[in-house]
Protein backbone atom coordinates (compact mmCIF):
# COMPACT_ATOMS: atom_id res chain seq x y z
CA UNK A 1 0.00 0.00 0.00
CA UNK A 2 1.44 3.36 -1.03
CA UNK A 3 1.95 5.88 1.72
CA UNK A 4 -0.26 8.92 1.12
CA UNK A 5 1.17 12.27 2.09
CA UNK A 6 -1.15 14.17 4.47
CA UNK A 7 -2.20 17.74 3.73
CA UNK A 8 -0.63 20.57 5.70
CA UNK A 9 -2.98 23.16 7.08
CA UNK A 10 -2.78 26.10 9.43
CA UNK A 11 -2.82 25.49 13.20
CA UNK A 12 -6.04 27.46 13.55
CA UNK A 13 -8.35 29.72 11.55
CA UNK A 14 -9.80 33.20 12.01
CA UNK A 15 -12.12 35.68 10.36
CA UNK A 16 -9.78 38.18 8.70
CA UNK A 17 -12.21 40.60 7.11
CA UNK A 18 -15.90 41.30 6.61
CA UNK A 19 -17.91 43.17 3.99
CA UNK A 20 -21.55 43.82 3.23
CA UNK A 21 -23.83 45.04 0.46
CA UNK A 22 -27.30 46.45 1.02
CA UNK A 23 -29.46 47.21 -2.01
CA UNK A 24 -30.01 50.89 -2.80
CA UNK A 25 -33.80 50.82 -2.44
CA UNK A 26 -34.98 51.29 1.15
CA UNK A 27 -38.52 50.02 1.67
CA UNK A 28 -40.44 51.45 4.63
CA UNK A 29 -43.44 49.74 6.23
CA UNK A 30 -45.77 52.14 4.36
CA UNK A 31 -44.93 50.31 1.12
CA UNK A 32 -45.69 46.92 2.71
CA UNK A 33 -49.05 48.29 3.86
CA UNK A 34 -50.11 48.81 0.25
CA UNK A 35 -50.73 45.06 -0.08
CA UNK A 36 -51.66 43.91 3.44
CA UNK A 37 -54.24 45.07 5.98
CA UNK A 38 -51.98 45.98 8.91
CA UNK A 39 -50.29 49.00 10.45
CA UNK A 40 -46.80 50.38 10.97
CA UNK A 41 -47.30 50.04 14.73
CA UNK A 42 -48.38 46.37 14.40
CA UNK A 43 -45.39 45.49 12.19
CA UNK A 44 -42.94 47.23 14.51
CA UNK A 45 -44.39 45.66 17.66
CA UNK A 46 -44.34 42.12 16.18
CA UNK A 47 -40.97 42.29 14.42
CA UNK A 48 -39.07 45.46 15.30
CA UNK A 49 -38.67 46.09 11.58
CA UNK A 50 -39.01 49.67 10.31
CA UNK A 51 -37.34 49.43 6.91
CA UNK A 52 -35.67 46.82 4.73
CA UNK A 53 -33.71 46.89 1.47
CA UNK A 54 -35.11 45.35 -1.70
CA UNK A 55 -32.88 44.59 -4.66
CA UNK A 56 -33.40 46.03 -8.14
CA UNK A 57 -33.10 43.90 -11.27
CA UNK A 58 -29.43 44.90 -11.49
CA UNK A 59 -28.72 43.93 -7.87
CA UNK A 60 -28.53 40.22 -8.57
CA UNK A 61 -27.31 37.54 -6.16
CA UNK A 62 -23.96 37.56 -7.98
CA UNK A 63 -23.66 41.36 -8.10
CA UNK A 64 -24.42 41.81 -4.37
CA UNK A 65 -22.00 39.00 -3.51
CA UNK A 66 -19.21 40.52 -5.58
CA UNK A 67 -19.66 43.91 -3.89
CA UNK A 68 -19.61 42.37 -0.39
CA UNK A 69 -16.67 40.11 -1.26
CA UNK A 70 -14.56 43.00 -2.56
CA UNK A 71 -14.97 44.79 0.75
CA UNK A 72 -14.23 41.65 2.78
CA UNK A 73 -11.07 40.91 0.77
CA UNK A 74 -9.84 44.50 1.17
CA UNK A 75 -10.66 44.38 4.88
CA UNK A 76 -8.67 41.14 5.20
CA UNK A 77 -5.67 42.76 3.54
CA UNK A 78 -5.22 40.05 0.92
CA UNK A 79 -5.69 39.96 -2.85
CA UNK A 80 -8.42 38.06 -4.75
CA UNK A 81 -5.87 35.68 -6.30
CA UNK A 82 -5.07 34.35 -2.82
CA UNK A 83 -8.63 33.04 -2.34
CA UNK A 84 -8.59 29.25 -2.52
CA UNK A 85 -12.24 28.57 -1.77
CA UNK A 86 -15.58 30.32 -2.31
CA UNK A 87 -18.63 29.12 -0.38
CA UNK A 88 -21.97 30.76 -1.09
CA UNK A 89 -25.00 30.17 1.10
CA UNK A 90 -28.31 31.18 -0.47
CA UNK A 91 -31.86 29.96 -0.96
CA UNK A 92 -32.83 32.67 -3.43
CA UNK A 93 -30.58 32.17 -6.44
CA UNK A 94 -33.03 30.90 -8.99
CA UNK A 95 -30.64 29.26 -11.41
CA UNK A 96 -29.91 25.98 -9.75
CA UNK A 97 -26.89 25.02 -11.76
CA UNK A 98 -24.07 25.93 -12.13
CA UNK A 99 -23.39 27.10 -8.59
CA UNK A 100 -23.33 30.90 -8.41
CA UNK A 101 -20.11 30.59 -6.38
CA UNK A 102 -18.17 29.82 -9.58
CA UNK A 103 -19.37 32.99 -11.33
CA UNK A 104 -18.56 35.06 -8.23
CA UNK A 105 -15.09 33.50 -7.93
CA UNK A 106 -14.36 34.31 -11.56
CA UNK A 107 -15.70 37.87 -11.47
CA UNK A 108 -13.78 38.87 -8.33
CA UNK A 109 -10.57 37.68 -9.99
CA UNK A 110 -9.94 34.76 -7.67
CA UNK A 111 -8.60 32.53 -10.43
CA UNK A 112 -9.65 28.91 -10.06
CA UNK A 113 -10.59 28.32 -6.41
CA UNK A 114 -12.85 25.54 -5.18
CA UNK A 115 -16.31 27.09 -5.42
CA UNK A 116 -19.70 25.77 -4.41
CA UNK A 117 -23.12 26.74 -3.05
CA UNK A 118 -24.74 25.43 0.12
CA UNK A 119 -28.34 25.47 1.27
CA UNK A 120 -28.71 25.87 5.01
CA UNK A 121 -31.30 28.64 5.24
CA UNK A 122 -30.73 31.17 7.98
CA UNK A 123 -27.96 29.01 9.48
CA UNK A 124 -26.05 29.21 6.18
CA UNK A 125 -23.39 31.61 7.41
CA UNK A 126 -22.44 29.36 10.34
CA UNK A 127 -22.43 26.31 8.11
CA UNK A 128 -20.18 28.07 5.58
CA UNK A 129 -17.90 29.40 8.30
CA UNK A 130 -17.47 25.91 9.74
CA UNK A 131 -16.62 24.44 6.34
CA UNK A 132 -14.17 27.27 5.66
CA UNK A 133 -12.44 26.77 9.00
CA UNK A 134 -12.10 23.09 8.19
CA UNK A 135 -10.59 23.84 4.78
CA UNK A 136 -8.02 26.26 6.24
CA UNK A 137 -7.01 23.98 9.08
CA UNK A 138 -7.00 20.89 6.90
CA UNK A 139 -4.93 22.67 4.29
CA UNK A 140 -7.07 22.48 1.17
CA UNK A 141 -7.24 26.30 0.97
CA UNK A 142 -5.30 29.07 2.66
CA UNK A 143 -8.02 31.70 2.37
CA UNK A 144 -11.72 30.98 1.98
CA UNK A 145 -14.46 33.45 1.13
CA UNK A 146 -17.79 32.75 2.86
CA UNK A 147 -20.76 34.61 1.42
CA UNK A 148 -24.35 34.75 2.69
CA UNK A 149 -26.58 36.32 0.06
CA UNK A 150 -30.34 36.54 -0.42
CA UNK A 151 -33.00 38.20 -2.52
CA UNK A 152 -35.85 37.15 -0.24
CA UNK A 153 -38.09 39.83 -1.73
CA UNK A 154 -38.42 37.39 -4.65
CA UNK A 155 -39.76 34.73 -2.26
CA UNK A 156 -42.11 37.01 -0.32
CA UNK A 157 -45.89 36.79 -0.62
CA UNK A 158 -46.75 40.48 -0.45
CA UNK A 159 -50.37 39.63 0.41
CA UNK A 160 -49.51 37.46 3.43
CA UNK A 161 -49.92 39.74 6.43
CA UNK A 162 -47.86 37.40 8.63
CA UNK A 163 -44.70 37.49 6.50
CA UNK A 164 -44.91 40.31 3.92
CA UNK A 165 -42.96 42.71 6.13
CA UNK A 166 -40.28 40.30 7.32
CA UNK A 167 -37.82 39.77 4.53
CA UNK A 168 -35.06 41.81 2.95
CA UNK A 169 -32.23 41.48 0.46
CA UNK A 170 -28.47 41.81 0.77
CA UNK A 171 -25.10 40.09 0.92
CA UNK A 172 -22.49 39.67 3.62
CA UNK A 173 -19.06 38.11 3.21
CA UNK A 174 -16.08 37.18 5.34
CA UNK A 175 -12.58 35.96 4.54
CA UNK A 176 -11.43 33.04 6.69
CA UNK A 177 -7.68 32.45 6.84
CA UNK A 178 -4.85 30.97 8.89
CA UNK A 179 -4.17 31.90 12.51
CA UNK A 180 -1.60 31.07 15.15
CA UNK A 181 -4.23 31.00 17.88
CA UNK A 182 -7.84 29.76 17.90
CA UNK A 183 -10.21 32.56 16.86
CA UNK A 184 -13.15 30.45 15.70
CA UNK A 185 -14.53 28.17 18.40
CA UNK A 186 -16.12 24.75 18.04
CA UNK A 187 -19.40 24.87 16.12
CA UNK A 188 -22.52 23.53 17.77
CA UNK A 189 -24.76 22.69 14.84
CA UNK A 190 -27.46 20.33 13.76
CA UNK A 191 -30.82 19.80 12.11
CA UNK A 192 -34.36 18.91 13.14
CA UNK A 193 -35.94 17.55 10.00
CA UNK A 194 -39.09 16.55 11.86
CA UNK A 195 -39.88 20.28 11.95
CA UNK A 196 -39.28 20.85 8.23
CA UNK A 197 -42.80 22.21 7.69
CA UNK A 198 -42.49 25.04 10.21
CA UNK A 199 -40.52 27.21 7.74
CA UNK A 200 -40.81 26.24 4.12
CA UNK A 201 -41.40 27.24 0.51
CA UNK A 202 -45.13 27.09 -0.25
CA UNK A 203 -44.81 24.86 -3.35
CA UNK A 204 -41.84 23.11 -4.97
CA UNK A 205 -40.57 24.41 -8.32
CA UNK A 206 -41.46 21.23 -10.17
CA UNK A 207 -45.14 21.92 -9.57
CA UNK A 208 -44.76 24.16 -12.62
CA UNK A 209 -44.30 21.03 -14.72
CA UNK A 210 -47.65 19.66 -13.60
CA UNK A 211 -49.64 22.66 -14.80
CA UNK A 212 -50.38 26.29 -13.95
CA UNK A 213 -49.30 27.28 -10.45
CA UNK A 214 -51.64 29.73 -8.74
CA UNK A 215 -48.95 31.77 -6.98
CA UNK A 216 -45.19 32.07 -7.30
CA UNK A 217 -43.55 30.06 -4.49
CA UNK A 218 -42.99 32.05 -1.31
CA UNK A 219 -41.63 31.53 2.19
CA UNK A 220 -44.16 30.59 4.82
CA UNK A 221 -43.82 29.79 8.50
CA UNK A 222 -45.73 28.77 11.61
CA UNK A 223 -45.01 31.88 13.65
CA UNK A 224 -45.61 30.64 17.19
CA UNK A 225 -43.82 27.32 16.70
CA UNK A 226 -40.83 29.04 15.11
CA UNK A 227 -40.72 31.67 17.85
CA UNK A 228 -40.73 29.06 20.60
CA UNK A 229 -38.01 27.00 18.95
CA UNK A 230 -35.89 30.02 18.03
CA UNK A 231 -35.96 31.55 21.48
CA UNK A 232 -35.95 28.67 23.90
CA UNK A 233 -34.24 25.84 21.99
CA UNK A 234 -31.69 28.13 20.36
CA UNK A 235 -30.80 29.73 23.69
CA UNK A 236 -29.68 26.25 24.77
CA UNK A 237 -27.58 25.88 21.59
CA UNK A 238 -26.05 29.32 22.16
CA UNK A 239 -25.11 28.30 25.70
CA UNK A 240 -23.59 25.06 24.37
CA UNK A 241 -21.43 27.07 21.96
CA UNK A 242 -20.15 29.19 24.87
CA UNK A 243 -19.43 26.03 26.85
CA UNK A 244 -17.67 24.43 23.88
CA UNK A 245 -15.46 27.50 23.51
CA UNK A 246 -14.62 27.34 27.21
CA UNK A 247 -16.02 30.78 28.04
CA UNK A 248 -19.06 32.21 29.80
CA UNK A 249 -21.36 35.05 28.80
CA UNK A 250 -19.31 37.31 31.09
CA UNK A 251 -16.41 36.90 28.64
CA UNK A 252 -18.51 37.99 25.66
CA UNK A 253 -18.32 41.43 24.09
CA UNK A 254 -20.85 40.97 21.32
CA UNK A 255 -23.89 38.80 20.53
CA UNK A 256 -24.82 38.45 16.86
CA UNK A 257 -27.88 36.24 16.47
CA UNK A 258 -29.49 35.69 13.08
CA UNK A 259 -31.57 38.81 12.48
CA UNK A 260 -34.94 37.09 12.18
CA UNK A 261 -37.13 39.29 14.32
CA UNK A 262 -36.43 41.76 17.14
CA UNK A 263 -38.81 39.91 19.45
CA UNK A 264 -36.77 36.72 19.04
CA UNK A 265 -33.54 38.66 19.68
CA UNK A 266 -34.94 40.36 22.81
CA UNK A 267 -36.33 37.14 24.18
CA UNK A 268 -33.10 35.22 23.50
CA UNK A 269 -31.07 37.88 25.32
CA UNK A 270 -33.42 37.56 28.29
CA UNK A 271 -33.39 33.75 28.26
CA UNK A 272 -29.58 33.65 27.99
CA UNK A 273 -29.33 36.23 30.81
CA UNK A 274 -26.64 38.07 28.85
CA UNK A 275 -24.75 40.65 30.95
CA UNK A 276 -25.49 44.33 30.29
CA UNK A 277 -22.03 44.96 28.81
CA UNK A 278 -22.67 42.63 25.86
CA UNK A 279 -23.44 44.53 22.66
CA UNK A 280 -26.38 42.94 20.86
CA UNK A 281 -26.79 43.18 17.06
CA UNK A 282 -30.19 44.69 16.21
CA UNK A 283 -29.65 45.22 12.50
CA UNK A 284 -33.07 43.69 11.72
CA UNK A 285 -34.70 47.08 12.39
CA UNK A 286 -33.39 48.57 9.17
CA UNK A 287 -32.41 45.46 7.21
CA UNK A 288 -35.24 42.99 7.81
CA UNK A 289 -34.58 39.26 7.80
CA UNK A 290 -31.97 38.50 5.14
CA UNK A 291 -31.48 34.82 6.07
CA UNK A 292 -27.91 33.67 5.38
CA UNK A 293 -26.74 37.27 4.89
CA UNK A 294 -27.96 38.59 8.21
CA UNK A 295 -25.04 37.68 10.50
CA UNK A 296 -22.19 39.01 8.33
CA UNK A 297 -24.26 42.12 7.51
CA UNK A 298 -24.88 42.75 11.21
CA UNK A 299 -21.22 42.06 12.00
CA UNK A 300 -20.08 44.54 9.35
CA UNK A 301 -22.43 47.24 10.65
CA UNK A 302 -21.40 46.80 14.30
CA UNK A 303 -17.74 47.21 13.32
CA UNK A 304 -18.40 50.09 10.91
CA UNK A 305 -20.39 52.06 13.49
CA UNK A 306 -17.90 51.44 16.29
CA UNK A 307 -20.39 49.47 18.41
CA UNK A 308 -17.93 46.57 18.21
CA UNK A 309 -14.22 46.54 17.56
CA UNK A 310 -11.58 44.25 16.10
CA UNK A 311 -10.54 41.62 18.63
CA UNK A 312 -13.92 41.52 20.38
CA UNK A 313 -15.27 38.11 21.33
CA UNK A 314 -18.62 37.44 19.65
CA UNK A 315 -21.18 34.68 19.86
CA UNK A 316 -22.87 34.09 16.50
CA UNK A 317 -25.90 31.86 16.04
CA UNK A 318 -27.95 31.15 12.94
CA UNK A 319 -31.20 29.19 12.87
CA UNK A 320 -33.95 28.65 10.35
CA UNK A 321 -35.57 26.53 7.66
CA UNK A 322 -34.74 22.86 7.96
CA UNK A 323 -34.90 23.34 10.77
CA UNK A 324 -31.14 23.87 11.03
CA UNK A 325 -28.87 25.77 13.37
CA UNK A 326 -25.20 26.63 13.91
CA UNK A 327 -23.58 28.55 16.76
CA UNK A 328 -19.96 29.41 17.44
CA UNK A 329 -17.78 31.91 19.27
CA UNK A 330 -15.48 34.01 17.09
CA UNK A 331 -12.99 36.83 17.42
CA UNK A 332 -14.14 39.79 15.34
CA UNK A 333 -11.82 40.88 12.50
Amino acid sequence: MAKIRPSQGAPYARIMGVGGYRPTRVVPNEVILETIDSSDEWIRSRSGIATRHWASDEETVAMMSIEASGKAIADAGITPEQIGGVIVSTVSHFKQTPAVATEIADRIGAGKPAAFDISAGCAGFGYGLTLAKGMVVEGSAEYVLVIGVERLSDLTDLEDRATAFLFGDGAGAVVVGPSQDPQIGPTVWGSEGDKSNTITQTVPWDDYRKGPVERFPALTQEGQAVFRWAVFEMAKIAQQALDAAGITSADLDVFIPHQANMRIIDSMVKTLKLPEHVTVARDVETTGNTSAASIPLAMERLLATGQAKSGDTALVIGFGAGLVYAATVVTLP
Partner: protein
Amino acid sequence: MAATQEEIVNGLAEIVNEIAGIPVEDVQLDKSFTDDLDVDSLSMVEVVVAAEERFDVKIPDDDVKNLKTVGDAADYIAKHQV
Protein backbone atom coordinates in the same frame (compact mmCIF):
# COMPACT_ATOMS: atom_id res chain seq x y z
CA MET B 1 -48.36 18.09 44.46
CA ALA B 2 -50.71 19.43 41.81
CA ALA B 3 -51.53 23.11 42.02
CA THR B 4 -55.09 24.21 42.83
CA GLN B 5 -57.03 26.32 40.36
CA GLU B 6 -56.44 29.37 42.54
CA GLU B 7 -52.70 28.74 42.59
CA ILE B 8 -52.71 28.27 38.81
CA VAL B 9 -54.57 31.54 38.19
CA ASN B 10 -52.32 33.42 40.59
CA GLY B 11 -49.27 31.91 38.91
CA LEU B 12 -50.55 32.84 35.45
CA ALA B 13 -51.23 36.37 36.70
CA GLU B 14 -47.62 36.70 37.86
CA ILE B 15 -46.33 35.34 34.56
CA VAL B 16 -48.54 37.65 32.46
CA ASN B 17 -47.50 40.54 34.66
CA GLU B 18 -43.82 39.81 34.14
CA ILE B 19 -44.02 39.22 30.40
CA ALA B 20 -46.63 41.77 29.31
CA GLY B 21 -46.69 44.20 32.25
CA ILE B 22 -50.40 43.63 32.91
CA PRO B 23 -51.47 44.27 36.57
CA VAL B 24 -51.97 40.91 38.31
CA GLU B 25 -55.50 41.87 39.44
CA ASP B 26 -56.59 42.20 35.78
CA VAL B 27 -55.77 38.56 35.05
CA GLN B 28 -59.16 36.92 35.69
CA LEU B 29 -60.60 33.62 34.46
CA ASP B 30 -62.89 35.19 31.86
CA LYS B 31 -60.25 37.48 30.35
CA SER B 32 -59.04 36.84 26.81
CA PHE B 33 -55.25 36.95 26.50
CA THR B 34 -55.28 38.80 23.19
CA ASP B 35 -58.45 40.91 23.38
CA ASP B 36 -58.48 41.91 27.06
CA LEU B 37 -54.91 41.57 28.27
CA ASP B 38 -53.04 42.70 25.15
CA VAL B 39 -50.88 39.57 25.10
CA ASP B 40 -49.94 39.10 21.42
CA SER B 41 -49.21 35.77 19.74
CA LEU B 42 -45.47 35.91 20.48
CA SER B 43 -45.88 36.98 24.11
CA MET B 44 -48.40 34.14 24.42
CA VAL B 45 -45.59 31.71 23.55
CA GLU B 46 -43.49 33.20 26.35
CA VAL B 47 -46.42 32.89 28.76
CA VAL B 48 -46.89 29.25 27.75
CA VAL B 49 -43.21 28.37 28.18
CA ALA B 50 -43.12 30.07 31.60
CA ALA B 51 -46.30 28.22 32.62
CA GLU B 52 -44.80 24.91 31.46
CA GLU B 53 -41.84 25.43 33.77
CA ARG B 54 -43.86 26.66 36.70
CA PHE B 55 -46.56 23.98 36.63
CA ASP B 56 -44.53 21.08 35.22
CA VAL B 57 -46.80 20.63 32.24
CA LYS B 58 -46.28 20.31 28.46
CA ILE B 59 -48.35 22.57 26.23
CA PRO B 60 -47.67 21.66 22.56
CA ASP B 61 -47.83 24.37 19.85
CA ASP B 62 -51.00 22.85 18.43
CA ASP B 63 -52.80 23.33 21.75
CA VAL B 64 -51.65 26.91 22.34
CA LYS B 65 -54.13 28.34 19.86
CA ASN B 66 -57.03 26.85 21.85
CA LEU B 67 -56.06 28.75 24.99
CA LYS B 68 -58.10 31.89 24.38
CA THR B 69 -58.86 32.91 27.97
CA VAL B 70 -57.08 32.69 31.29
CA GLY B 71 -59.72 30.12 32.25
CA ASP B 72 -58.85 27.98 29.20
CA ALA B 73 -55.19 28.00 30.24
CA ALA B 74 -55.97 27.27 33.90
CA ASP B 75 -58.21 24.33 32.91
CA TYR B 76 -55.59 22.97 30.52
CA ILE B 77 -52.86 23.15 33.15
CA ALA B 78 -55.08 21.60 35.83
CA LYS B 79 -55.91 18.71 33.49
CA HIS B 80 -52.38 18.07 32.24
CA GLN B 81 -50.10 18.78 35.17
CA VAL B 82 -48.13 15.87 36.53
